[in-house]
């Protein structure tokens, strides 16, 4: 990965709003053709980072280059080379599908002889054949999102920044959207996409986890699962989840415990013995089944990483 061309490079990227630090000394580098998933709770700094990389917010400290251009010093050059989908749906819903595409073709100065072909591609990509003259306001969420993506890539940018493009879209439409993303990376497009759907993180080459403005971890989904937990993960059925959670978090040999649905996930130190857990709970009057060792999901990893305060970024 280090040999590849680094299309997005951020070094110590920081954004402060008054006393509040939204993004704190973020280092990130994305190679050509990579899809990096940006994961983190609301307010973690995902949008702020993406906006800085698009040249929409001026970094308070640190620097970043996108497609070789400095986002602070040459934001206009950056804009020529990126496609951006903001978190809020941002096409004109009082214009038709075709009018939106025509508008953005004009703004991006798509070569005239290519407008027709690229518009056709975008319409086909969104699955909007036959609805070219429908007002965008009348479209359902999934179509809108795919059309927005179509508008953002009309000028064939080498880099795409997608800020929660699939939020509020039904699962089937989300899957279609990710098919499009993979098609684009196949063509060499570099993509940074933020999401809060865990299953979407699995679709990325690498995941960058951000919390409270800091990059907590970065790596491929597999690496994250293997390395980041630092212990063995068990699933546990028990009678009172809340009380068990409190008891386990104070128990020796337990790194962390968390509620997952109607079960508990317990992370034990490598030296701890899982069979000791039910008797320990029984002393508190809580009945528990036998712990089952499980392969950690990315969600386990994130819950674990986010709950650790001030974790230093782990190198990938």
């Amino acid at each position, binding site marked *: 990965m280090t040999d590849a061309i680094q299309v997005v490079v951020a070094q110590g990227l920081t954004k402060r*709003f008054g006393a509040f630090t939204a993004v704190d000394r973020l280092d990130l580098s994305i190679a050509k053709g990579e899809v990096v998933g940006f994961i983190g709770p609301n307010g973690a700094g995902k949008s702020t980072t993406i*906006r800085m990389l*698009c*040249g*929409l*917010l*001026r970094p308070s400290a640190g620097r970043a280059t996108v497609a070789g251009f400095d986002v602070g010093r040459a*934001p*206009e050059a950056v*804009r*020529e080379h*990126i496609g*951006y*989908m*903001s978190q*809020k*749906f*941002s*096409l*004109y*819903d*009082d*214009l038709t599908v075709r*009018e939106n595409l*025509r*508008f*953005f*073709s*004009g*703004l*991006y*100065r798509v070569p005239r002889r290519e407008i027709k072909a690229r518009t056709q591609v975008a319409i086909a990509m969104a699955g909007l054949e036959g609805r070219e003259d429908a007002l965008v306001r009348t479209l359902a969420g999934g179509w809108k999102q795919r059309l927005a993506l179509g*508008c953002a890539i009309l000028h064939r940018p080498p880099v795409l920044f997608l800020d929660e493009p699939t939020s509020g879209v039904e699962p089937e439409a989300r899957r279609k959207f990710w098919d499009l993303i993979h098609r684009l990376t196949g063509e060499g497009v570099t993509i940074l996409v933020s999401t809060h759907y865990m299953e979407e993180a699995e679709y990325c080459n690498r995941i960058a986890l951000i919390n409270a403005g800091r990059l907590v971890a970065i790596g491929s989904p597999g690496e994250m699962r293997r390395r980041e937990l630092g212990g063995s993960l068990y699933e546990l059925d028990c009678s009172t989840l809340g009380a068990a959670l409190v008891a386990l978090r104070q128990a020796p040999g337990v790194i962390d415990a968390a509620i997952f649905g109607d079960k508990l996930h317990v992370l034990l130190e490598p030296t701890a013995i899982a069979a000791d857990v039910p008797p320990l709970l029984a002393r508190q009057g809580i009945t528990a089944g036998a712990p089952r060792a499980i392969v950690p999901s990315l969600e386990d990893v994130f819950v674990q990483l986010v709950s650790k305060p001030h974790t230093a970024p782990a190198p990938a």
Partner: protein
Amino acid sequence: MNARRLFAIAFKETLQIWRDPRSLAIALLMPAMQMGLLGYGVSLDIKRVPLCVYDQENSQTSRELVQRFVASHWFAAAHVLHDERAVRDATDSGGCIATVTIPVNFSRILATTGAASVQTVFDATDANTTNISMGYAQGVIAQTTNDFAARWAAARGQRAQRVGGIDLEPRVWFNEGLDSRNFIIPGVVAVILGLIGAQLTSLTVSREWERGTMEQLVSTPVTALELMIGKLTPYFLNGLFDAAFCLCAAAFWFRVPFRGSIGTLILTTALFTLVVLGIGYLLSVRIRSQLGASQMAVTLTMMPITLLSGYTFPIDQMPAPIRAVTLLVHARYYVTILRAVFLKGSTIADLATPILALVLYAAVITWIAARSFRKRLD
């Protein structure tokens, strides 16, 4: 500056205006509505003042005096009263603005001394109307007195004596009929353009901020100047269309005499439209909410234009500090220009001062507006 991006924005903006019933109504229906309301509603001429008469004498002479009042179209048909209390009641209820009381011995005193008194009472709640009706009443009485004197003199076989040695023969220029409509209607055009233009453009940028489309727009290579010119072009064309409609209504419907050149009119109107749109755009860029920007546009344009542009209240009658403030009111220059072009037929050279003021205004406003727009979210 890129022509394709400019055109893309202008075209998109046109489509959006076309599909927004509210913008369309403001752009196309408001001028006609306001032209009708302000054109017919605002008149400073006072005619047919409600009149009451308490004729205590009821002689041929006194009845002739009453007839003279009614015959002048300044007063409405007299309402005849029969006692003092009725006079007071009529005035209190607002039924008459002017009351004439003719004393019992009116014609006898007039015949013997040549001068008799008539009492007139005015309801001065509206000082302006009272002032003017008092003038009318004095005119009617003076004319009647002269005629009576002439008649008696003739009856005695003498020539009538003129009262007073100097004879004033006034000539009024430019608005020969002293018809206030001729000077108000051109001002109405300025008011309408000023209100509508700022109102419409105040929404154009704030709407994009509110709907979230601006974030997408600023992520493209479009420049602030392209955005401003592209967005203002359709409003500018609409402004010229509205102006043409209002000016035609002024000339052909309200029959305000037009003595100037069409070229001067077009040039100055384009200039004023630019200033107005620039103000709306500036507000829209600065205040990122539609409601805030449009309310600001109404406040900042409505009050100054109606009160301080000289369209109804003459600027040279205002106290010095207020007069200084009017220098900042863009409409005052356009009102001056319109009146001069319509009534005096003034040329561009005659109007150099107000035209230069508008040029300066347009330059400053568009410069600030262009600079105010930042392609950043912070």
